[in-house]
């Protein structure tokens, strides 16, 4: 029943741009889908208590490597994006492996990764001769129009379908992780590392796998954002505020459910847009004001997020009965 509903909704989403073509709404959908994918990528590891504040860094790597390879090396994004994913993955290993090896967890892990997003932001700003620094960077247009080779499209419909496909793939990865043995291993690790190790879980390897997966997905989101917007700046794709924004949206939507990050993206982006349209420039700052209050309220009163709480309310919990 739920399965067929899911397929139906998916088919509806694919058919949408052929029926409905209002450019602004399609643009909004594309942006929501790209960010949903980024948030889903974060939650793939975040749900196991591996709270990273460094994902802004991975997103920045994804966007800038792709754009720099295209502008400076003339490398098509079809090669540039895999390069960017590789760079993100390598960076993740460099930082995460020692972290896990030396058992840097919890607060400390969050703060080390915070330093990582700081580093990426500062490096982008410092190498302003190549990256444009804080003024931002634009991939060169390939002969002015759409091109499959340059992965540049002027039509919103094409981008909508690409973003939808990537977002769907992100959800699929989430499901695969959810159904895998890895999930049990990681849940055991997040409860008790020593216990998990004693039960035969290779703690470092399991954590490293999920971190690299999550980092590469985030880098892909960054590359996609770059190709769609055709403009990136250190503040829109990297840095600490982007990292916090990811965590925030996921917490609002729900960390432990597949559609949580997506719902978080829909709510946060729509909130910002509605405020921007109804109040114009007077609204500067109001969206984050509301975000901030919501974030605190959610963590205090609804730590499972919107979708998580709905799922809990609809489905009687077996775990609750067992615990009594």
């Amino acid at each position, binding site marked *: 029943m739920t399965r067929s509903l899911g397929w139906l909704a998916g088919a509806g989403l694919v058919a949408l741009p052929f029926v409905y073509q209002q450019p602004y709404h399609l643009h909004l959908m594309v942006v929501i889908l790209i960010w949903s994918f980024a948030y889903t990528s974060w939650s793939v590891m975040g749900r196991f208590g591996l709270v990273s504040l460094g994902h802004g860094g991975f997103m920045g790597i994804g966007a800038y490597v792709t754009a720099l390879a295209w502008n400076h090396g003339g490398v098509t994004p079809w090669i540039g994006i895999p390069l960017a994913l590789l760079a993100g993955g390598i960076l993740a290993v460099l930082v995460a492996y020692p972290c896990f090896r030396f058992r840097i967890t919890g607060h400390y892990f969050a*703060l*080390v990764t915070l330093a990582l997003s700081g580093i990426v932001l500062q490096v982008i700003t410092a190498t302003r001769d190549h990256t444009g620094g804080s003024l931002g960077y634009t991939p060169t247009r390939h002969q002015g129009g759409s091109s499959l080779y340059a992965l540049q499209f002027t039509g919103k419909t094409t981008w909508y379908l690409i973003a939808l496909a990537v977002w769907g793939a992100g959800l699929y990865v989430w499901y695969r992780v959810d159904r895998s043995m890895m999930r049990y291993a990681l849940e055991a690790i997040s409860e008790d590392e020593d216990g998990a190790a004693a039960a035969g879980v290779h703690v470092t390897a399991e954590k490293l796998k999920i971190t690299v997966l999550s980092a590469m997905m985030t880098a892909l989101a960054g590359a996609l954002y770059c190709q769609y917007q055709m403009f990136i700046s250190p503040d829109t794709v990297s840095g600490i505020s982007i990292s916090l924004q990811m965590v925030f949206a996921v917490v609002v939507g729900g960390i432990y459910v597949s559609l949580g990050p997506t719902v978080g993206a829909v709510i946060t982006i729509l909130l910002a847009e509605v405020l921007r349209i109804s109040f114009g420039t007077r609204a500067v700052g109001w969206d984050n004001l509301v975000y901030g209050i919501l974030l605190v309220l959610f963590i205090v009163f609804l730590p499972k997020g919107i979708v998580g709480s709905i799922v809990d309310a609809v489905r009687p919990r077996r775990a609750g009965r067992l615990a009594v």
Partner: protein
Amino acid sequence: MAILDVFLLEALINGVLLGGVLALLSLGLNLVFGVIDVVWICYAELIMFGMYGMYFLYTVYHWPLLVAAAVCIVGVGLLGVLLHVLVIAPLLGAAPINQLLATGGVLFFLQSAATVMFSIEFRNLGLRLPVLKLAGMFISYSRLLAFAAALIGMVLVYLFLARTYTGAAIRAIAQDRQIMVLMGVDARRIYLITSALGGGLAGLAACLLVLQYDVHPFVGLSFGPITFLICVLGGLGNFGGGFVAAFVFAELISLGGLYLDLEWGYVFAFVFFIVMMFVRPAGLLARRS
């Protein structure tokens, strides 16, 4: 070839002066973490509000500088108490990461509240302190003043913690949160005092920073992350470690800025931080267990 040329010496001295302020910044955060076991991600935003307070009281309403400073220190101290009562207290039993994220929400809130109230213009005190010229080096009085005030502030906090009954209770709570409650220490009262003290230190830092930097709603992002990294590098809750780490960081930034760009100074400091996390994960001064 002189190794200790004038520019290097100037950079080194400026590094030490910057280190004093950073040490003060990290002291407040360390105190709160050591006692309450919570990281105030929004710490730098409290400082930002203090800076605005100084700007409005001194530049707009023309209060005497010292009175304005005193009001700001008390005001930010109260903000700290408010933060504790409204956000931290309900989450004391929750997972540590939730507390971290909740103060992250407060960060968003304070930043945008400042944007809404004060707009995004850069404002400064309009107060120009003279520059000290010494053997061909330029050292600004505002930095010297900040350094001295930071040292005095730290000594006062040290005396408070070491010599008073309440200070002893605060240190005891930091060592063992469960037992001290059984010994008759009112943990809630200690938490409130600590939050006020942490906020007050943020207020003092604000008074000193506003002498050197313009204030704008996002000013917190420029020194907030550095403050956390210093605390972690020194070992969260370890006051001495934070002190040493602040000076190491300040020198790295200052020297990196001398030889390359200021951003590279930050990059070096961040990379140094990550490397040190692997070498000494529990902090610079931690004893190896």
